[in-house]
């Protein structure tokens, strides 16, 4: 055996700067949380927030700076992972602020402030992993921390039940992914994604069936994790049971990270054989869009409604990717990625904003039903107007980020000849208007309940809502800054 090159701290830092910052913060926060007296524990989330922001800065610094994929570190530091990391860290910061603003200790004990960081480290690793083992470990770090986060509301049966359901279905998903990856490892003889890609070239000829089986198993497992139909059914139950900030976390960060995993694995490992299996992704995207949006129609609970809507949004996110694969060309794929990422940013902002408003309303009215929004406009015009913008953006109204994102996705789908996906996208977002209107109507046209006092949000909460609102509108009115950033990325090289 040749001389072993052991990995140095410089390597680790260059490869995993953001993760290191975040993990260190997590441990510091954990120790602080253990040591300080209960009265001062409320500072711990702020520490987490600071750590997240620091990690974000580190990530932003390595944008465009391409370190050669580090074989020893089994991670790829490229702009693909960087941009996803930035989105994840931004969302994570907003969600921590949202949790701070919710300030209901009973629902979310302070332990969340480091659990959420553990989960986010996993999410970051997922976007960068260049090795099956790293990838799977990252996935499990995200998943296991998420199970804990969902069940964290102590004394709430719903929270525990949600945690159990998420654990069971999530573990099935993990097992499917693992089972599929084991075949990938077996056929390629290595766990490095890039080496796998090269050594699978011959396997596509000799053992195509097993490779397709492996692909399908991985896709199904990923489908479970990011609630792609028909693997989506758990979503509403788990989202309902989880504390609202955690729901926002699942809806945004988990999905973003798993989407990154899906894209990287599909492109590098299975990318050789695109046209044969790529329509499958298209079909899954289509079914997901339909089921998510139709399923939301009959919901009365806003959290469940947003859960179904987020299923539909996942379908939208998959569309450019599904379309780009049909005519594989680097520029087409990058265009699709740009569209997806643009929509992902818009999705993150509008979803977190929506959940923030929901959290405020829920706290004020002790209900998550649509009726809880009755007369919100009278009780708090600011909240109602913000919610209106978030909902319009989710539905794809012009002048919001959601519209531009959908427009880009639509364009990609058409450009790649998958007009049917575009049409389904448009039709389902027309359906989406229907159920978003239910909330809008409640807010603006129903009479508020007897309790006419203004609904107050904490400053932290207002900050979250303001940031999300500004971002959503900015993305809708001035798309060029983000688009030129995305256009200038060196995705994988």
């Amino acid at each position, binding site marked *: 055996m040749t001389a072993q090159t052991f990995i140095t701290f410089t390597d680790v830092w260059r490869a995993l700067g953001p993760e290191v910052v975040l993990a260190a913060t997590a441990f510091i926060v954990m120790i602080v949380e253990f040591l300080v007296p209960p009265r001062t524990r409320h500072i711990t989330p702020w520490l987490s927030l600071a750590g997240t922001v620091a990690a974000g800065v580190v990530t932003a610094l390595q944008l465009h700076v391409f370190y050669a994929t580090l074989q020893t570190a089994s991670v790829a530091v490229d702009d693909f992972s960087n941009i996803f990391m930035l989105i994840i860290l931004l969302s994570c910061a907003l969600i921590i602020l949202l949790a701070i603003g919710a300030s209901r200790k009973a629902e979310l004990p302070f332990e969340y402030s480091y659990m959420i960081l553990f989960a986010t*480290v996993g999410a970051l690793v997922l976007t960068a992993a260049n090795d099956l083992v790293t990838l799977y470990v990252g996935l499990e770090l995200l998943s296991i921390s998420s199970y804990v986060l969902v069940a964290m509301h102590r004394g709430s049966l719903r929270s525990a039940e949600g945690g159990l359901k998420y654990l069971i279905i999530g573990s099935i998903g993990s097992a499917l992914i693992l089972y599929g990856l084991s075949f990938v490892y077996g056929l390629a003889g290595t766990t490095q994604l890039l080496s796998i890609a090269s050594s699978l070239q011959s396997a596509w000829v000799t053992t195509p069936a097993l490779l397709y089986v492996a692909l399908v198993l991985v896709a199904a497992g990923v489908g479970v994790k990011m609630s792609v139909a028909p693997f989506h059914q758990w979503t509403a139950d788990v989202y309902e049971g989880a504390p609202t900030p955690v729901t926002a976390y699942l809806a945004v960060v988990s999905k973003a990270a798993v989407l990154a995993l899906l894209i990287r694995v599909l492109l590098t490992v299975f990318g050789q054989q695109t046209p044969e299996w790529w329509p499958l992704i298209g079909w899954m995207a289509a079914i997901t869009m339909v089921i998510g949006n139709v399923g939301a129609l009959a919901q009365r609970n806003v959290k469940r409604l947003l859960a179904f809507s987020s299923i539909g949004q996942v379908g939208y996110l998959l569309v450019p990717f599904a379309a780009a694969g049909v005519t594989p060309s680097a520029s087409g794929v990058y265009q699709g990625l740009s569209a997806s990422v643009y929509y992902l940013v818009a999705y993150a902002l509008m979803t977190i904003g929506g959940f923030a408003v929901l959290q405020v309303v829920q706290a004020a009215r002790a209900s998550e039903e649509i009726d809880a929004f009755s007369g919100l406009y009278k009780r708090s015009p600011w909240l109602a107007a913000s919610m209106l913008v978030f909902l319009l953006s989710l539905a794809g109204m012009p002048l919001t980020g959601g519209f531009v994102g959908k427009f880009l996705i639509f364009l990609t789908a058409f450009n790649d000849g998958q007009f049917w996906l575009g049409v389904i996208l448009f039709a389902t977002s027309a359906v989406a208007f229907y159920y978003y209107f239910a909330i809008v109507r409640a807010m603006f046209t129903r009479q508020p309940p007897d309790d006419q006092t203004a609904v107050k949000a904490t400053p932290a909460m207002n900050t979250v809502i303001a940031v999300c609102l500004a971002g959503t509108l900015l993305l809708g009115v001035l798309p060029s800054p983000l688009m030129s950033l995305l256009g200038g990325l060196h995705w994988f090289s």
Partner: protein
Amino acid sequence: MFFGMPLTGQTVSFFLLALLIIASGVMLMTLTKVMHMAVALAGVFLGVAGIFILLGADFVGMAQILVYAGAITILMVFALMLTQKGDDTESPEASTGRSLLTLLGVVVFTGIMLLVLRGTTWPYSQSAVDPYTQPTVVLIAQSLYHTYTIPFELLSLILTAALVGSVVIARKED
């Protein structure tokens, strides 16, 4: 020859172990008494450990015995007894309709997997020689501290998260 394979000690032990695993697994699905289930559980995990050792992965086999056949089985048995309400018997089973549907799904799944596995021609050397140049412990240690350092470190995060998390969730109201 046995199922198209030379009847060696390895083959015999494989089939014995496979029989043990599958029989224990099926028993686990059908038994209702806690102690019987514990035995079946240990049977599955020990059988898998045996398979590992048969495949030359002695360290993994040992870890399997320690973690699964030892720790997890005991933990599960404790949990079973802890959540038991009075009598020793298990709670009623799922509706037969859904069980049958599940069975159907599982059979389709297994059938296709087996078909695909059988239809796959393996291009690899099916050497009977021990492929490892060094004891597996050494090899594992080397790659843990070399190729897989990052996931290894991440694992520590997972274990911490799991430890703290389960304590946070399971502890009584404070």
